[in-house]
């Protein structure tokens, strides 16, 4: 990104298995986090552990801490929506509370919404389809719910916004891409504020799909570990409120962080496996660096995608050895699971938190170094002294996206 307009983050929201707020999630990462549990939102033939959110507690939190209008409006907005849209709205509400925005103030600004999702935009009406195939069509409730549950559109409708609305569906890099694209809207002066992030709920169909690919684990996942044998699915949402730095200064509020750079490239290699030499990820890194005023030597740590599949972690290890052999890195999916479209956004929020604390937690689930990876993530709380960090996501289809994040003002 050029240096014309610095993109500041004025508030964040985070809802996942690690916690219901950004602060709670970061605190959980410092301790031993709760393991995944068998899915209880739906039934499956071969249950494997997954990471769930506590939406009831999250809703209670925004009711207790938000101004009355936004909290009551959020509760009303959840009705009739699917779970992904609900996660998005709850987390957006918390992020706006953190950023100090009311609904009335927002409606006087040019506000865009850019949300990454995977499950949230899928034709997720299995029960209706099953009844259709049995020649006994059920009521259309599931279909009607799908039609109003695109998370980006649901957020815009909830807040009464008229700015650009985008639903980014780039699989596992959606959240990272949504924040990168939202930052472009600020830089290009399309919006005064952008609500950017990702959201995805656990879904029976997606759960079955990932199991069919044989990349899930029946134990708690162990990113980068020698004994890793697959991922756990998770659900959640991560949201960043983006504003121009100048505007934030006029509001007399400090920036929680900055989006200093964004890069995205595709491997053009294989539809479900990354390039063996991380070709696309390397190009995306070069793109992010060229778009920012940051050199790779300025990067103090990396939030890796780290899904705990044998292939992903090996490829990321190759990439890190090539470009960041001495730089600490971690994966947090051992505490959150793989939240698909939300992952990149949740991890961007975590990365900003680590930057501001100047402290990395131990990488949950990691115990033993894998010689094939060649490096090991943080094994204990690790102090860092840095202004910049990298958060990267590798996706189905060969997408590779990363954000260069800068420490905030406080």
């Amino acid at each position, binding site marked *: 990104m050029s240096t014309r307009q610095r993109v500041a983050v004025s508030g964040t929201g985070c809802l996942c298995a690690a916690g219901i707020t950004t602060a709670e999630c970061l605190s959980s990462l410092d301790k031993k986090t709760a393991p995944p549990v068998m899915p209880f939102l739906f039934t499956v033939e*071969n249950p494997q552990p997954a990471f769930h959110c506590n939406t009831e507690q999250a809703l209670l939190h925004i009711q207790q801490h938000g101004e009355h209008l936004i909290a009551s409006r959020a509760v009303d907005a959840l009705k009739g929506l699917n779970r992904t849209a609900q996660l998005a709205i709850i987390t957006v509400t918390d992020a706006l509370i953190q950023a100090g925005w009311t609904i009335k103030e927002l409606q006087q600004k040019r506000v865009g919404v850019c949300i990454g999702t995977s499950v949230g935009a899928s034709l997720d009406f299995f029960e209706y389809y099953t009844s259709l195939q049995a020649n006994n069509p059920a009521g259309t409730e599931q279909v009607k719910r799908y039609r109003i549950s695109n998370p980006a559109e649901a957020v815009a409708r909830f807040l009464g916004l008229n700015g650009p609305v985008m639903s980014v*569906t780039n699989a596992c890099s959606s959240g990272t891409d949504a924040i990168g694209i939202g930052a*472009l809207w600020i830089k290009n002066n399309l919006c005064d504020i952008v609500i950017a992030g990702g959201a995805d709920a656990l879904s029976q169909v997606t759960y079955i799909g990932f199991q069919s690919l044989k990349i899930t684990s029946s134990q708690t996942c162990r990113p980068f570990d020698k004994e890793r044998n697959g991922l756990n699915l998770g659900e959640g949402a991560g949201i960043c409120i983006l504003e121009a730095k100048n505007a934030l200064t006029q509001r007399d509020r400090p920036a929680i962080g900055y989006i200093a750079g964004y890069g995205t490239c595709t491997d053009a290699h294989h539809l479900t496996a990354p390039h063996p030499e991380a070709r696309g990820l390397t190009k995306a890194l070069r793109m992010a660096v060229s778009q920012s005023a940051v050199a790779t030597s300025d990067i103090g740590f990396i939030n890796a995608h780290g899904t705990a599949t044998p292939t992903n972690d090996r490829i990321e290890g190759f990439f890190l050895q090539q470009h960041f052999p001495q730089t600490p890195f971690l994966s947090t999916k051992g505490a959150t699971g793989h939240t698909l479209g939300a992952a990149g956004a949740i991890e961007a929020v975590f990365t900003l938190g680590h930057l501001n604390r100047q402290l990395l937690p131990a990488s949950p689930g990691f115990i033993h170094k894998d010689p094939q990876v060649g490096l090991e993530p943080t094994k204990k709380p690790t102090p860092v002294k840095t202004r910049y960090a990298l958060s990267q996501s590798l996706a189905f289809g060969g997408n590779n996206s990363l954000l260069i994040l800068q420490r905030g003002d406080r």
Partner: protein
Amino acid sequence: MQLYINGYSLLGGHNLPASLLLQSVLNGDQAFVQSANDPAPTIATEDIEECFPSRSLRQLGHYERATLLGVSLALRSANITDYADTAIVLATGYGPAQPTFDFLDSILNYGQTLSSPLAFSHSVQNIPAAVLAQKLSIEGPCHTVCQLNHPVATAFRLAHDILHTGLASTVLLAAIDEVTAPLRHIRQALLQEKIDAHDVCTASLPLGENAAFFCLSAQRSEQSKALMTIADSSEPFDVPAFYSGPPKYAPATMTFGAPFYGQNPINHAVDCALALSWFDRLHWTGKDAPQTIVCQHTDTTGHSLALSLRKQ
């Protein structure tokens, strides 16, 4: 927003050439108007095998084949053979619908533990864009926008941001949605409940399987066919204008193409392709080709976005 359109192609619309479809739409030719109950013709994709070896197309479904064909034709239209520094943006309302239902079928037919990993992986929304990248060896940004409201204008906006930030020098923009049997059933069910489901279809309009593809750049070139900018959709237009969206919002002064080529979430892109066809002197339509054409789309809430195309 400012984009140069250097090449385009149109698929669907009864598989007519763009010029003939344009002619029928402008002249109100009832011969091509289908009733709401007629099955929508699907996009013909046989020509894809002139562009790629058939073996390389194995495991690709209809949606992916149509996307690949449309982009290939648009690249040919723009005379582009070098794909370095190129990005892909795909706009869709539903995404790859049939692979999704194929995966659900595999669960119902064989059980969860024997469900099809191939169908699941092809049902992920960004896989068609990834197929484009893989088959054309394009290694730049690759994005998919999946939403029922304004997918096309949003995708053009993203293309603009990619080009003007220097993330790529060319963007291939594909807009496509397929018609599937389950979606037809859903349409009927919603109609019986008297729901104004314009994205599925209203009682008066057929569903249409349509797609349009564009090669875009930030800078003008010899190949540039039109300059696209955002128009003020609140003003009446004093130039020819196309409309897409719910019939109830269609202004009488605009050409409404859906009765001819069927309702589809990405019809905004179809209208842009028809406008480009109108500019092309080789496709004489019997009406003087204008210098500027506006394409407006209104979503289910009544919110309108208009794209203005000026002939280059």
